[in-house]
């Protein structure tokens, strides 16, 4: 055989059917495996992203409540007896609501309703509602909900308030797992 013979154009010679079949089979087996790994990574990344956003929402509610209650409360109204607050939090069980009076004698408070919304009530807000949601299940951007069965807002003693709740994000698609972060904090009324 001359040196140049193997370099001659192999006119008309392609891969056999068996060869092609094997190649297609290998591709068919390896591609799903590869994409499974890639998609599981993407899913994990999305989980972390959701976890961060749940924490962001939860932290926001915690900051807001801590700031308002710790520094501005002069009196507690544990049962929300004040007429405005009683109206705004009607139907909410006592274990999930608490009211205060601030230094300007304006009543305000917080409650967690049955759908898992965390609401801030204040006589300073618009008279139609007196309520603003700190965490809302209807938020179009990133809806989060509090589990109402485990949530509790309690007056531990005259000057100590305890908040316990779990902030949860339930994805709209079923195959994604929900993510949740627990919040529990005590607030000492400084004033």
């Amino acid at each position, binding site marked *: 055989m001359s040196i140049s013979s193997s370099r001659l154009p*192999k006119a008309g010679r392609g891969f056999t059917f068996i060869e092609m079949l094997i190649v297609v089979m290998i591709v068919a087996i390896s591609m799903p495996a590869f994409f499974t790994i890639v998609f599981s990574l993407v899913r994990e*990344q999305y989980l*972390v992203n959701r976890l*961060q956003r749940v924490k962001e929402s939860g932290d926001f509610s915690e900051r807001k409540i801590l700031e308002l209650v710790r520094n501005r409360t002069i009196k507690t109204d544990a049962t929300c007896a004040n007429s405005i607050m009683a109206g705004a939090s009607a139907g909410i069980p006592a274990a999930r609501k608490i009211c205060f009076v601030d230094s300007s004698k304006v009543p305000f408070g917080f409650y967690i309703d049955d759908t898992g919304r965390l609401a801030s009530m204040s006589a300073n807000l618009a008279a139609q509602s007196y309520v603003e949601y700190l965490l809302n299940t209807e938020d179009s951007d990133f809806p989060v909900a509090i589990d109402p069965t485990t949530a509790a807002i309690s007056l531990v003693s005259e000057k100590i308030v305890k908040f316990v709740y779990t902030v949860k994000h339930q994805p709209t698609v079923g195959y994604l797992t929900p993510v949740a972060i627990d919040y529990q904090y005590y607030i000492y009324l400084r004033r």
Partner: protein
Amino acid sequence: MPTTLVRKHTGFTLIEVVVFLVVFSVALITIVSTVTYSSVLIEDSKHKVIGTRFGEELLEWVKFQKDLLGYEAVRAKVPTLSNAATFCFNTLNLQTWPSVGACSGYNLKNFYKRELTLTKVSADELVATIVLSWRILDKVKTHTLIVYVNKL
């Protein structure tokens, strides 16, 4: 040259096979390492989010303790003769102060370790250092939060 000399069944040359193997293994190693690296990063940031949350929870509790007990009582948690003391807060519910001592293991949610170190800076100031740590592939990762506890 007569065309009959052309071999009917030519295989791949050694060079071709070697080049293919090199290219293929480089590609495979790149993909596998990228996947491994990003999954480690993702796992790490997941624990960082949860760990930070646990740390902030304790930080808020320390502030609450200062409001509740007063500065001197929090300072008294550090034994008189020492300059610093470490406490282990590996329980989910923060209620009472544990006795002085570092954590024995990672048993907060069976994964994290939450320690608080109170250090006396001056008569009027303490530094509370909260260290959250967890292990990934035998490597210890930590997240530290610091809050100053003042007499005022």
